[in-house]
């Protein structure tokens, strides 16, 4: 009886705890959400922001049959997967290889972390300068060393250039967290394993990596979401690209929203995206709970 009352009480406490954030989200988002839901089923342009015209689910049909939408989804998916894989691998290698240095001199982490402090929109602009054939140092040194510089932003290379740029900016994020996880493997676990006299490789393969697995997955997940919805740096560097070859899903939605002035369609596209990601996330949460 007492236990039941306590759990009732604590249930109420739980609601108290989550109420501020819930209230905040309701106050900030409820009205926009309702307006967006209306927009999603309406024909609405900037001229008719306050007088949308109901058209049913036409916007969703338009999105689902728009090959540009699927092209952008594919771009984002490919970009997100490649960037995530590259970042996690690179960060893992660096974290483990540099761990002895960083453990002794923790200030060395600071310069490694700096790239993630820079606004992605500015990073895109920085590369407009850095990659320019005549004023950019990168092509300058390519010419100096190899006699020629590749076309970084030409149709053949632009995708890989963008992947590289994103990877270079966000590997530090993965590095930081993976290094943390690597450092926090308890000393007694290591010492116990040492007793069997494993090689460095065996240690890594059978002890350390399995212990870091949840962190690796978490980092990969965060970085995948972030790079999937990439916007600022691509937008300022190449826009949607020649023939739309660098149009991520966020750029697609931005352009439909502002440039095509088809607000209902842009909102509908986001709702499709939201539905997909909500489904995936719920599955993932269930799965990770079963794991834990």
């Amino acid at each position, binding site marked *: 009886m007492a236990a039941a009352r306590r759990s009732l009480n604590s249930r109420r406490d739980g609601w108290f705890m989550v109420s501020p954030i819930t209230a905040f989200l309701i*106050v900030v988002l409820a*009205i926009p959400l*309702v*307006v967006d839901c*209306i927009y999603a089923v*309406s024909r609405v342009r*900037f*001229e008719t*922001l*306050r*007088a*949308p*015209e*109901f058209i049913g689910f036409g916007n969703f049909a338009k999105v689902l049959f728009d090959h540009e939408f699927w092209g952008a989804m594919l771009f984002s998916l490919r970009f997100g997967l490649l960037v995530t894989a590259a970042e996690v691998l690179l960060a893992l290698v660096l974290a483990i290889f540099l761990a002895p240095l960083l453990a002794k001199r923790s200030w060395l982490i600071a310069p490694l972390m700096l790239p993630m402090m820079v606004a992605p929109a500015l990073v895109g602009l920085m590369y*407009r300068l850095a*990659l*320019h*054939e*005549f*004023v950019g140092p990168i092509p300058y040194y390519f010419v100096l060393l190899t006699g020629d*510089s*590749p*076309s*970084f*932003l*030409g*149709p053949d290379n*632009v995708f890989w250039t963008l992947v590289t740029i994103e990877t270079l900016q966000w590997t530090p994020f993965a590095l930081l967290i993976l290094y943390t996880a690597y450092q926090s493997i308890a000393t007694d676990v290591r010492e116990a394993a040492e007793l069997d006299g494993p090689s460095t490789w065996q240690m890594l393969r059978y002890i350390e990596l399995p212990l870091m697995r949840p962190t690796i997955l978490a980092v990969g997940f965060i970085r995948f979401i972030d790079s999937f919805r990439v916007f600022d740096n691509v937008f*300022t*560097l*190449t*826009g*949607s*690209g*020649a*023939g*739309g*070859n660098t149009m991520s899903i966020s750029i697609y939605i931005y*352009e439909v929203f*502002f*440039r*095509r*002035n088809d607000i209902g369609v842009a909102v509908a596209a986001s709702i499709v995206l939201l539905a997909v990601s909500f489904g995936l996330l719920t599955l993932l949460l269930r799965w990770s709970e079963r794991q834990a």
Partner: protein
Amino acid sequence: MKSIVQALCSAAALLALSGAAARAEVTVLGWPGGPEEVSLRASAEVYNKTAAADDQVKLIFFNRDNFFDKLQTDLAAGTTEFDANLTATYAVGRYAPFMDPLELPAAAHETFSDGVLKTMQFEGKQYGIPTDLSMHFMYYRSDLIAKLLSDPAWQAKYSEIAKAKLGKDLKPKDPDQWNWDDWAATALFFTKSVNSDSPTRYGTVLQMKNLLFNMMVWHSTARSFGGNWTDASGKVIVDGPGYRAGLQLYKMLYDAGTSPKDSLSYEYAEANAAFGSGQAATMLQWNAALGDLDSKEKTPAVAGKIGTVAPPAGPDGRFTHIHGLGLGINASSKHKAGALKFLNWLATPDAMLGYARSGGSPALQSALVDKIAKERPDLVKIGTFAGQYGFVMNGATSAKTLPIYELQAKQFTGYWAGTQSLDDALKAVSAGMTDLLKK
């Protein structure tokens, strides 16, 4: 549906924390960054010396990259943050629903010709005072062209390259006599990978980024080959020989390597940096670039060695895209009377002469141009070119102008990049434009 959204908005209003304080001055949103901004500042300063306290003009600016997205949001939401704002020939139709038509003062007709005033009109109504006129020049390196016109060895090589690459018998010509073939041959001649004796790495620099402004630069080519957006009846005619020829010319020049490898990501700034480094012999570019490129402090490699002429001629003649920038009244403004006072003043001959003296490029009546011809010889050129070669595509002042430019930019850059065929690009643009213009 309307009432729901309105109810939501008023519900939000009930949560009001503080009302926006009314401003005691007139706020004008100008075009940022260039000589337009410098001139507007100078003009506002002059105006404020004599204006009443309530009519003082304060200027604000946004960034350029997202200017139209931001302006569109502000205007559509009925902002009161500014009273007068920028408008442009290609956007006048889009912003007309959110702006008040103007009654032009008599003085405006002394300052501007009817043709220039028209660049700010939509469906017969005047929406802005035209402050600046933009068009394209063919920039070239006068030192290199002079040598080409006088050096027999270069001339022979030039003809040889023209024959080999273009299949035509050509001799170097003065840039003012160029047709597009002459330009192409010159571009090929000054390209290192084609002609190892070339003093420059590239013969030209093309701006091919997927960006609406780049379509404007390219349009002069299409127009001179006979291309247009629509015919007199309003039927979309982009899928025709004019557009085809113009698009193929750029593709040929890009594929032949006459323009930097990354040209598909080039816009105004990148192109100027390439030309300014002295490594490109020609460039089709906005008139506004001349000031910086000809400055010894900014680009010493080319300053004093630049010639400018109207773009080359095509079968249909010689053309340059023109558009006006101007200022009009925000329909939601709370200071319309004050804003009108400033705009009416700005449209007077004296105010516009002052505007021109501080660097802006207004298109003025010839009587006025004569008064400042000594200080601003380029204004004479701008006036002449606008009169002789200026064009606006049919339908390019409609409410759909910006989306049409966006559509063309996307499809045509796809063709230039080699990711889609010319036929597909033209078909997609044709269908998209018909759809946009129908609604």
